[in-house]
């Protein structure tokens, strides 16, 4: 819809009329440029190009103008073409650009000018040519800031939607990979692409996503977070039910599990639905490092999750209500630390948590040169000096620091926020009612989490409801050769992996065929002497059900031939 609700207008054959209606809508801006060209000197046909400076790559426009002014004319004169059908002339003989769209609607032309295309109007032709000339300044593909891995690809999404979809498209070279286009935001008309793999994704999921996106009626979409809030399942819940990520490998692996990805223009954060809660505790590293290392780090992360949620509450509860549960030497140490502190434990805990949040927020907003100073000063001040001054007890500092560090272990930033939010009611409940408060609040949170669904999937699956076949990727990460099936949230094509993928010494073969080498997702061909199996492996996080598809194309020398 055009911004000021003009009725549908079409172009006519008159250049002056066409130009005037365009200029009427866009004319006032300083960056709106009109380039007049004369085409077909003999017949004195005029043409005009409209574009917005800054959004365009002027070299392509120069090409347009060049083709109109010089080469087009030459072609026509040389081949003596019929000059009456201007449209066909331009289409087939003159315009040298790679692709363009013709339209008779004013709205479409306006939209394309505002998106960085150039609109070409020619006298005697009632169609406008929208030539893509996008060329604005943008950030190059760099490492994602918020999600870093030690091992794994380091390209992250940028703000341009086509670059982002290309990064994923490169990883999944399957015909089932589809991209559907949508638009949202009345005044921003932000491009949204929905990506899925046809044949894996569950029926109805894509339609559901499209329906929810089409329901959005807001004036501007600036970031995928807007969309997230408008289409999520449990809008009032502290738990995030939609995952957002900056990593193309994560998106690609989710697609291979049967999920749907939502790309939004102007933001590097791509949304993936549906989500399980346990996904937020998984990082890409788990899948690229060996399965033992991956499982170990994952267990560390689960422990960190539990710690960050409950440690402060348990400490407050023990010290305020149930001192008999503390082992005696520890009780004496805690008591000696608290001798001079004037606050009750609950207040002390809240104070420290608040200070920690202040420090964290300050560290984030500080301009870079000052940032490091704040972190050092902050930790020194809070840690040592406060204890020496007798405002907090040393134990509390340790507890809060551990809790804070544990919350940073959670890979997904928005998930760590939600956990931090949940911590506060738990803390207050256990500080006021002791064990009763802790148990009740914990039960309430658990019930709440159990009742959430994310686009049809239970939020806490595969723990409850228990899906035994999906357990291979929840707490431990089973090795690739053991994960045979896709997660249950995918539909067809459930078998991911071929037979007997466990690496084994050859059974009497001289070639090293039975060694199954697993390449990384940007798969190179591995050592030529082994069976080069090409793995289009793009697993990043599989929420809860780690079943990945390993496509294996056996080389002619491979074991397959022996069989």
């Amino acid at each position, binding site marked *: 819809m055009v911004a000021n609700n003009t009725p549908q207008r079409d172009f006519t054959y008159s250049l002056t009329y066409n130009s005037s209606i365009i200029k009427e809508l866009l004319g006032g801006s300083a960056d709106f440029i009109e380039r007049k060209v004369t085409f077909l000197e003999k017949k004195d046909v005029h043409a005009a190009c409209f574009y917005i400076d800054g959004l365009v790559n002027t070299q392509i426009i120069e090409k347009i103008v060049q083709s109109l002014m010089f080469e087009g004319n030459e072609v026509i004169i040389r081949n003596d073409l019929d000059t009456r059908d201007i449209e066909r002339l331009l289409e087939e003989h003159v315009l040298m650009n790679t692709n363009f769209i013709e339209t008779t609607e004013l709205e479409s032309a306006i939209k394309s000018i505002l998106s960085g295309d150039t609109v070409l109007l020619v006298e005697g032709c009632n169609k406008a040519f929208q030539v893509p000339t996008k060329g604005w300044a943008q950030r190059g593909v760099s490492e994602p800031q918020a999600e870093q891995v030690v091992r794994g690809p380091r390209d992250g999404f940028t703000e341009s939607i086509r670059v982002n979809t290309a990064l994923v498209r490169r990883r999944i070279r399957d015909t089932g990979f589809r991209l559907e286009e949508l638009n949202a935001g009345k005044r921003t008309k932000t491009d949204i692409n929905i990506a899925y793999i046809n044949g894996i994704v569950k029926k109805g999921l894509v339609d559901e996503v499209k329906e929810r996106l089409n329901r959005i009626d807001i004036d501007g979409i600036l970031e995928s977070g807007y969309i997230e809030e408008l289409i999520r399942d449990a809008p009032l819940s502290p738990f995030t039910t939609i995952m957002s990520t900056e990593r193309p490998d994560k998106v690609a692996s989710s697609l291979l599990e049967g999920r749907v990805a939502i790309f939004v223009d102007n933001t590097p954060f791509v949304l993936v639905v549906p989500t399980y809660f346990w996904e937020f505790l998984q990082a890409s590293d788990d899948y690229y490092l060996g399965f033992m290392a991956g499982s170990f780090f994952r267990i560390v992360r689960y422990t960190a999750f539990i710690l960050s949620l409950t440690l402060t509450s348990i400490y407050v509860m023990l010290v305020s*209500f*149930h001192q*008999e*549960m503390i082992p005696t030497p520890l009780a004496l140490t805690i008591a000696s630390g608290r001798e001079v502190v004037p606050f009750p434990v609950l207040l002390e805990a809240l104070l420290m948590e608040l200070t920690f949040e202040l420090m964290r927020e300050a560290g984030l907003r500080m301009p870079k040169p000052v940032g490091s100073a704040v972190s050092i000063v902050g930790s020194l001040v809070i840690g040592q000096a406060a204890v020496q001054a007798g405002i907090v007890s040393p134990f509390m500092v340790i507890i809060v620091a551990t809790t804070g560090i544990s919350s940073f272990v959670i890979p997904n930033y928005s998930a760590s926020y939600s956990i931090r939010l949940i911590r506060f009611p738990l803390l207050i409940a256990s500080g006021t009612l002791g*064990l009763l408060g802790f148990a*009740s609040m914990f039960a309430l949170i*658990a019930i709440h989490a159990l*009742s959430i669904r994310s686009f049809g999937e239970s939020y806490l699956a595969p723990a409850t409801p*228990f899906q035994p076949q999906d357990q291979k990727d929840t707490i431990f990460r089973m090795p690739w050769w053991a994960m045979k099936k896709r997660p249950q949230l995918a539909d067809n094509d459930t078998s991911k992996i071929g037979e007997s993928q466990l690496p084994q010494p050859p059974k009497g073969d001289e070639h090293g065929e039975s060694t199954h080498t697993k390449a990384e997702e940007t798969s190179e061909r591995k050592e030529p002497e082994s069976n080069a199996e090409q793995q289009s492996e793009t697993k990043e996080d599989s929420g809860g059900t780690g079943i990945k598809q390993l496509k294996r194309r056996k080389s002619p020398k491979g074991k397959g031939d022996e069989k």
Partner: protein
Amino acid sequence: MKVQITNGMFMALIINMLYAKSIGLTQGIMAREVGGDIWISTIFSSIQGIVIMAIVIFAIKRLPNGDMIDQYGQILGKWIGKGVAALVFLFFLGAYGTIMATFVYHLKDYFLPEAHTILFIVAAFLIGSYAIHFGIEVIARMALIGVFSVMALNILLLAGSISEFDIKELQPTFDSGFFSTLWASRHHDADWAMATMMACMILPLVRDSATWIRSSTSGLIFSGVIIVMWPILEVGVLSPEVAAQYIVSCMQMARSAEIGLFLHRYEMIMIAFFALSILTQIMMTFLCSSIAVQKIIGLKDYRPVIIPVGLVLSAFSYWMIGSHHRAMGIIEKEWVLVSLSIAIGLPGMLFVLGAIFKKKLKKKEEAKTV
């Protein structure tokens, strides 16, 4: 859309319904009667439970889409059905009282002696109504978490008490005589009566009626095994006389457990796990009583009656647990009578009546599906 729960969830619900009260109050009550043979009574009781559960399942299977009250209504008419619903409500009212007694005595006496009882009642009410608002699926999933916490609790206790275990205390077996041991098992019967009555109400919601008998039997056996560990430990570690002294013997044992020299008194960890399981039991009882009242009034859904039902349940339990002696008196005497007569009588009668009126049921079933 009909809500369905899986067999695994059903098993988990059975385990949770049985566990909380059986390990604590019941063992103390039985120890006062038969001393060291409470573990044998528990085993007897579990066997009886399996039998009654089988009767329930066969009775309900005849009309797989309706629960016990519906079936009574089909066979004997609408008003008898409402009467049965009232009896069911009475049962769950008493059950709620005993569960609240367990909950409050566990938490209040040992952890928060100065807190007022009303706090516990209100907290249980709030959590219960929040949970059953979402329906049985959420409660069933909580039950799964409850099962894990129950197992963790058992392991923790074993770790802390096994060093003090003295098998001499368990002997001689059948000291009190075979019949009195069997008679004492009626206390534990009252516990699984809650599970079978719950099954009466929610069996139609469990998918795949062919596996009802298998999943419920395995649920009962599994819970029997993990429950019987407690009387064995209580007698072996505490000695039967001490177990008989206390109201909540399981807490007494938990208090005596210690791991190594560092961790004495870690019963709070155990209680945190225990609280999850007993909260599931509270939710389930609340749900079943709401459904019973719904059937009495004849509503389509039980959600509107949650608040009044909750208030009645809370008021009753508050009255009952006000005095320790009143609560224990009711649990030991009146509750056993009421619960066993309802829990054995109703399904038993249904089984018989269903056999007699099979044709009537079949006709109604066909009329429904047509």
